[in-house]
């Protein structure tokens, strides 16, 4: 398995050693740290990419920084803390990376996290959906440059 980006690897290792209760606590902490959508995107929600795999309405946007890194913004309702928590994990693990680096993250990178102890398969599917759309946004950033 190729090495994960360091920040993401750290999150994966943390989760791997947690009890079910700790996983839930940590997901809540991620959900509660979920940043609001920046004002400039609030008015341009149409530009954001929908993630239809989630049962919750989820949209995301990859913003390219001057150094070439990508920062992801998410629009997820507060009524869906689990999805917010999972998106925050991905944002924490991947923000700042170059689009090419984002594409190297394996689809099943989260297997060692044993998320199924805390959340259902449906959620994990949504999580994979979010990652797939982040990669899609990264591909668009590469082809638009």
């Amino acid at each position: 398995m190729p090495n994960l980006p360091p920040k993401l690897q750290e999150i994966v290792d943390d989760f791997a050693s947690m009890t079910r209760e700790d996983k839930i606590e940590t997901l809540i902490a991620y959900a509660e740290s979920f940043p609001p959508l920046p004002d400039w995107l609030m008015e341009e929600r149409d530009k954001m990419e929908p993630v239809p795999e989630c049962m919750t309405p989820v949209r995301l946007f990859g913003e390219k920084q001057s150094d070439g890194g990508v920062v992801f913004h998410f629009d997820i309702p507060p009524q869906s803390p689990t999805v917010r928590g999972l998106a925050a994990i991905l944002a924490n693990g991947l923000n700042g990376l170059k689009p090419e680096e984002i594409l190297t993250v394996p689809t099943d990178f989260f297997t060692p996290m044993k998320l199924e102890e805390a959340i259902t398969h449906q959620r994990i599917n949504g999580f994979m959906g979010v990652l797939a759309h982040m990669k899609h946004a990264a591909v668009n950033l590469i082809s638009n440059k």
Partner: protein
Amino acid sequence: MSYVHPEYLVDTEWVAAHLNDANVRIIESDEDPLLYPIGHIPGAAQVDWFSTLQHPLRRDFLTREKFEEVASNLGITNDTTVVFYGDKSNWFACYALWLFQYYGHQNVRILNGGRLKWEQEKRELVKDVPSFAKSSYKAKEADKSIRAFRDEVLKQSNSKKPLVDVRSPKEYSGELISMPNYPQEGATRGGHIPGAVSIPWAQAVNEADSTFKTPDELRALYEGKGIKSDGEVIAYCRIGERSSLTWFVLKYLLGYQNVKNYDGSWTEWGNLVDAPIEK
């Protein structure tokens, strides 16, 4: 016209007045299980449709013995009034209620409007998780009259009796099935059970505050599609959760005598060898 069994609904006012009633247990059952730890109705307990109510190994519900254990740990006695509420217009609250009825607990209610209405009215939400003195709950034999299995569903379809597909229109038409990378819960085929009519579950609730639509609106919705109160009706969705809300509406709000929830739903039917499918 009123609901046929209005006693199965309570409103937020009623719940607020019964927060300290020892004969009432309030239970939150959500699609998103993190909502409860972030804040819930004071004194409410949580059940999770998956980790609390499902069999740990098989695709099935808890056994009767395990259900007794869950109910006892919640301090529920056979006389307790159990009120369910949750997110997403109470769809998982109805699922939990259905399971309680499956094991014979008759004294159940849905908080009309669920979590959303409680929040909209700015009522108190707390993080404290209550603990209850353990009771010794006795469940009844599983009530198969509210649960349909696949052979029965096939018979229902073959004899052209009413089936309600409560999934989204795209799932019904077969446009949406399993997506790439979704092996755990996809179905290998798309479409619907032959003869089933499409009445998406959410049409039974008001989007603005998650309350149920009026009796007249509900009657028009189901009767308009040929789902009448005489004879048996089977409702299904993808895993049986959305259809438990439809089951609740038909059985208690409209008073249909014979309604079953097919919890195998599309994730069983769409994978079943030799099962007929319509598109």
